[in-house]
């Protein structure tokens, strides 16, 4: 086989393979997308609901600490408004901001509560990996594309594939399509935890200093402004931690500074003696259990009512 003809044969075969792959990718991606939006329970269902359907008056944003700490029914009783918790395990500020952007494009809530964690603005290798939970929304949601493109330099290229946004989700989707919503622990987005902790409180004297990720800091400011521009009352809260931290945290300092510049209330319960150090109130070092979450929700809603209304 001569050089040119063998290259042509290779290119032709690669082209056929590529075309076949493209067709299969497109078809499999379409099937996955169809079933993705037909999930009846699970974390993705919660994200779909938060981004596309939530119409509640009070919305909570944040990570697992939001999801396990804010009981919507307690806030509903306090404010006489409907409430939903959009927090999601392992998802941080950019996730909350993306959800908020999607919500604000179609709905105006009456109150927004953003839960923030220590070290949330820390610059980390692979720090945006968690945004994979939002990849299925990339195609239909222009507003979050610039955030999702932060995942990697070639995110746009990867997203040419229709399967890629649903990477690793196939069995999850299959299960949540058939699983009954009533069997889920999720109550308006709040996921209760039931254990208590079995070691005494630690006093953490020092922690290594870390670099703030300026993209995250800027995103946080934009996040707050998105609510302000629509005239929606918003509060930032740092919910309780089990251990005692002696050192100040750079993220919390930054949040404090931005909130005061933007005239937004910041409630720091991270070291609140009503919660911190109480073994019976924590499921693990970072998460309150169900009973304590109700107590915290009451404390927090009382304060917010006084400050905002």
């Amino acid at each position, binding site marked *: 086989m001569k050089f040119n003809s063998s290259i042509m044969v290779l290119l032709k075969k690669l082209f056929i393979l590529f075309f076949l792959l493209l067709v299969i990718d497109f078809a499999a991606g379409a099937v996955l997308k169809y079933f993705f939006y037909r999930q009846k329970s699970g974390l993705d269902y919660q994200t779909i609901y938060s981004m596309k359907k939530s119409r509640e008056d009070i919305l909570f944003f944040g990570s697992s600490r939001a999801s396990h700490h804010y009981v919507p029914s307690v806030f509903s009783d306090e404010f006489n408004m409907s409430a939903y918790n959009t927090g999601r395990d392992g998802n941080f500020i950019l996730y909350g901001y993306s959800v908020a952007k999607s919500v604000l494009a179609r709905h105006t809530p009456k109150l927004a509560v953003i839960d923030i964690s220590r070290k949330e603005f820390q610059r980390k290798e692979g720090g945006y990996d968690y945004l994979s939970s939002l990849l299925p929304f990339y195609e239909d949601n222009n507003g979050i594309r610039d955030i999702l493109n932060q995942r990697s330099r070639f995110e746009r290229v990867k997203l040419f594939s229709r399967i890629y946004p649903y*990477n690793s989700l196939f069995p999850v989707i299959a299960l949540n399509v058939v699983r009954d919503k009533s069997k889920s622990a999720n109550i308006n987005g709040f996921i209760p935890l039931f254990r208590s902790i079995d070691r005494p409180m630690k006093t953490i004297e020092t922690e290594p200093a870390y670099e703030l990720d300026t993209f995250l800091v800027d995103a946080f400011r934009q996040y707050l402004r998105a609510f302000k521009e629509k005239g929606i009352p918003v509060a930032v809260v740092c919910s309780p931690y089990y251990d005692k931290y002696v050192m100040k945290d750079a993220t919390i300092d930054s949040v404090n500074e931005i909130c005061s510049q933007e005239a937004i209330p910041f409630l720091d319960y991270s070291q609140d003696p009503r919660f911190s150090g109480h073994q019976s109130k924590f499921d693990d070092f970072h998460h309150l259990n169900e009973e304590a979450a109700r107590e915290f929700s009451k404390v927090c809603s009382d304060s917010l009512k006084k400050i905002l209304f």
Partner: protein
Amino acid sequence: MLFNSIEFVIFFIVVTGLYFLLNHRYRWMLLLISSCYFYMAFVPVYILILGFTIVIDYYAGILIEGSTGKRRKSWLVVSLVANIGVLAIFKYYNFINDNITALLYGVGQSNPIPYLNILLPIGLSFHTFQAMSYTIEVYRGHQKAERHFGIYSLYVMFYPQLVAGPIERPQNLLFQFYKEHKFEYTRVISGLQLMLWGFFKKLVIADRLAVYVDSIYNNAEHHNGPTLIVATIFFAFQIYCDFSGYSDIAIGSAKVMGFDLMTNFKRPYFSSSISEFWSRWHISLSTWFRDYLYISLGGNRVSVPRWYFNLFIVFLISGLWHGANWTYIIWGALNGLYLVFALVRARYIDTFFQKNINLPSPLVKSVNIMVTFALICFSWIFFRAASFQDASLIITKMITTGGSVFVSNAFLFLYCILAIILLIGIELRQELKGQILFFKSDRLILRNLSYIFLILLILLIGVFDGGQFIYFQF
């Protein structure tokens, strides 16, 4: 630049395309420039270290060839000292210093030697060993000294195997840079097939298993024995797929351009003895140690106790090669002990069994494969654990604690199990039929279905946010 990145895919397409477009006379330049770019994508300044050893070894080769007697030997020593010196500074200095500090602390003294705040250049042990094999082979008269500085640099820096092997020998690689590689359809296909299989092993199996293994090994104190045993078995497959996946991509990408690199793995977990395992695992390193250390120590042409000692010391040093940590040294020593014990067993126990007990050979082979796998898994505990204390804790917990296996994410666990089953199935077919899936089938449809199956699995369950290859740190 990581093989498992879009950057590499673009880099590979561009370099390979240009390679076949260029006249043979200029190809070495393209490969050298692209290899520099590939290496500098990690930490650019470390190319200076590579440059330093390249210059030393290039001139050492010429000087060794041009001299005789003690002078010849002294040039070899210069080369070895330069290479081992670089390794000592960048890889072992802080380890040795830490141990001196610990010793001095024990006698109430402080260590005045400062700690060096340096990063280990990626793949240092690999290209240093490849460079050393060149000067040793020139010294032994098996290889002519390379006069073309660019070609010699390329021998050390050839991008497919620069950062994690296979560790090549000059007799196998140098002449290939002079050979005009024409575009060969079958060779290109076979290279691309190997790359695809490598990507599959890395993205679908190794990185998926890593999620579970890391979550358990990084919190070993919170987990029970069965969980730690499962995590260790998963790690055995993770490290195999991680490293052999890298080797396959390296060998495949070189093959596309017409280069033959040495085989580095031959399905090692089908080994029925430890010695067989080491003839199937990281072959380029095992044979390096055999050719340049074991044989230099006298190999097996010495007294039996000395033979055992030679084996043990080679594995001990192989452990140290992997990393400056006691865990690697223990891992090496353990494998050395396994081999010595296997020799003793073969000499006394096996002979007795063969004479007196007649067991069906498939049964014996199966048991041997499982025992070998169990022994290798035990040694992996030291390889994976962050410290000797962690490894001890893990072993203690494996023996003393029971309970159910920790599964935080049922789907992840299911993926891990299915990935291992799939790997064993595919490799068993490869072992018996000599081909991955239907890669060598005469039927176009079967070949294409095999490609599509692997690519779809990569897209569906591959880990795209996975990190580096484990062996990069060595």
